[in-house]
């Protein structure tokens, strides 16, 4: 468990960061550029000194202004993946991977062979960093950081310097590490899609302040995340249990009290699937529709109706099992359908609009 409660002044900018990070899984620090995310994790790593407060990891104090205590970066055992990889140009990939491993005296939980296999670095080992693509470089940087057997891994927008294709190439490796290694990670990003695919928990930041903290499912219903993610990303994030495939090959997922069927672009076998149901893709009907191409209909009850900044209404629908979906409709539609909190409705979701991301439950943290 990481506890951060720091203040740092840089000219006219003041950072006040206070949050906790769970003992396993990926906690995303999400917010617009310049909100203090990188400064925060540099303070956690010890590359920058805060002006006050306290940082503590698993009961070990890294920084305490009151006690004038500060542990040097090289003694914290905190791994750091930089935006620009920062591989040592005079060493081969193998030399880079060994650099941290040779200097670590902590118990080995990620062996060289395991990480090379997990990150598929086997064919790259004898190459020099300048012979690698951007995505390969980032994979080596991640492997190098993990081989030092850190107690915590910080990732500072590791995909930001990559184009979309390279980003999609590296993301699956990060999800794999999240699901197979029991090490807590803090992932800095301003890309909501990355957060959606990786994060188990979320810390929202804006202008040097922590706005909100929680799981993605919790936050997807809150104003704070809606503001930061942008109007066209407003929607419900649902962790849906996989039930199997139907006769036509569609994936069957348990959502609320009902079931969703979506096309599968990958053969999902186990665990949960994280779905992002965008509010603009959800349609409200006051009775089940039969003559409609939309096949996914979930019964629920309106919980609230809120007016958005853009002038449309955002309707929250309780679909049972503690889950919600959101629908964005015009105020005229709200009136015509006589929608009000408590009214039973059907949420209709076009299957093709749903994006699912595999999400295995994070591995239990091994004792380090």
């Amino acid at each position: 468990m990481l506890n951060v409660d720091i203040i740092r002044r840089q000219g006219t900018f003041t950072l006040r960061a206070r949050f906790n990070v769970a003992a396993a899984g990926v906690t995303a620090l999400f917010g617009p550029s310049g909100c203090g995310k990188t400064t925060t994790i540099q303070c956690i790593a010890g590359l920058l000194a805060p002006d006050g407060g306290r940082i503590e990891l698993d009961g070990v104090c890294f920084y305490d202004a009151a006690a004038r205590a500060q542990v040097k970066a090289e003694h914290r055992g905190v791994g750091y993946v930089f935006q620009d990889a920062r591989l040592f140009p005079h060493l081969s990939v193998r030399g880079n991977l060994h650099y941290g491993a040779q200097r670590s005296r902590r118990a080995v939980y990620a062996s060289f062979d395991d990480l090379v296999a997990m990150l598929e670095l086997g064919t790259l080992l004898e190459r020099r960093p300048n012979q690698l693509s951007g995505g390969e470089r980032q994979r080596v940087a991640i492997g190098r950081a993990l081989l030092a057997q850190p107690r915590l891994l910080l990732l500072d927008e590791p995909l930001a310097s990559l184009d979309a294709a390279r980003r999609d190439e590296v993301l699956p490796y990060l999800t794999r590490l999240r699901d197979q290694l029991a090490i807590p990670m803090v992932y800095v990003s301003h890309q909501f899609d990355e957060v959606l695919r990786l994060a188990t928990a979320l810390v929202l930041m804006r202008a040097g302040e922590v706005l909100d903290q929680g799981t993605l499912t919790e936050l997807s219903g809150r104003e704070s995340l809606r503001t930061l993610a942008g109007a066209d990303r407003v929607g419900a994030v649902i962790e849906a249990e996989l039930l199997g495939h139907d006769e036509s090959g569609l994936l069957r997922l348990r959502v609320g009290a009902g079931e969703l069927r979506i096309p599968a672009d990958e053969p999902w076998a186990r665990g949960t699937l994280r779905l992002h149901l965008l509010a603009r893709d959800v349609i409200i009907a006051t009775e089940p529709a039969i003559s409609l191409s939309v096949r996914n209909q979930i019964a629920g009850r309106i919980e609230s109706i809120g007016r958005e900044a853009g002038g449309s209404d955002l309707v929250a629908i309780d679909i049972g099992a503690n889950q919600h979906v959101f629908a964005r409709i015009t105020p005229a539609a709200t009136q015509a359908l006589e929608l009000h909190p408590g009214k039973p409705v059907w949420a209709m979701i076009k299957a093709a609009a749903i994006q699912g991301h595999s999400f295995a439950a994070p591995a239990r943290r091994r004792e380090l």
Partner: protein
Amino acid sequence: MWALSAAEWQALTLSLQVAAISVVCNLPLAVALAYALTRRFMGRGLLDAVVHLPLVLPPVAVGYLLLVLFGARGPIGHWLQAKLGLELVFTRAGAALATAVMTLPLMIRAMRVSLEHLDPGLEQAARTLGAGPWDRFFSVTLPLMLPGILAGAITAFAAGLGEFGAVITFVSNIPGQTRTLPLALYTALQMPDGDAAAARLAGLSIGLGIAGLVLAEYLSRRVARRLGR
């Protein structure tokens, strides 16, 4: 006509020795100074000026300052002789010292070029991987300085072969002890029949200088390529 006499061979080997000794003794100092000069600290400007002084002072003045400090009655020279038995005036060691002082700024300048290209982020990365300050210097900074160190060493060696003013002022012109290539050339010019010898020694100096510069360029390019620049 082009065959070297025994005395000329002696001058050549002495020059090579003096230049080699000065380079070897200068290297650790130059690396430390070049590295220090990329950092911010009090008195950095003053240190920078002192180090570069030999570039702008007349070499004779440098030789004079060396006499004052390192001569038999100079404060440092006296101490060296009393404690270590090291005699500098009129000796090969003294010639190497004068050469070292004169070539130090050249060496540092070559090293600073490669230090300025060095990404400070790499040292940060090394820190997060558990490397302390000395470890970082020897495992990251020094290997990446290597092209500059090589270029600096070879340039200083080539320039050291030709150091004249400071050497003749500090340690005089003694055959077999301090008569290096340029001093032998100067001596030949003073002789009525020394024209052929002067031509040979001048040609030799030019050849050595060009070879040094070409080698420096070639080696630092090779190393730079290996480092992926």
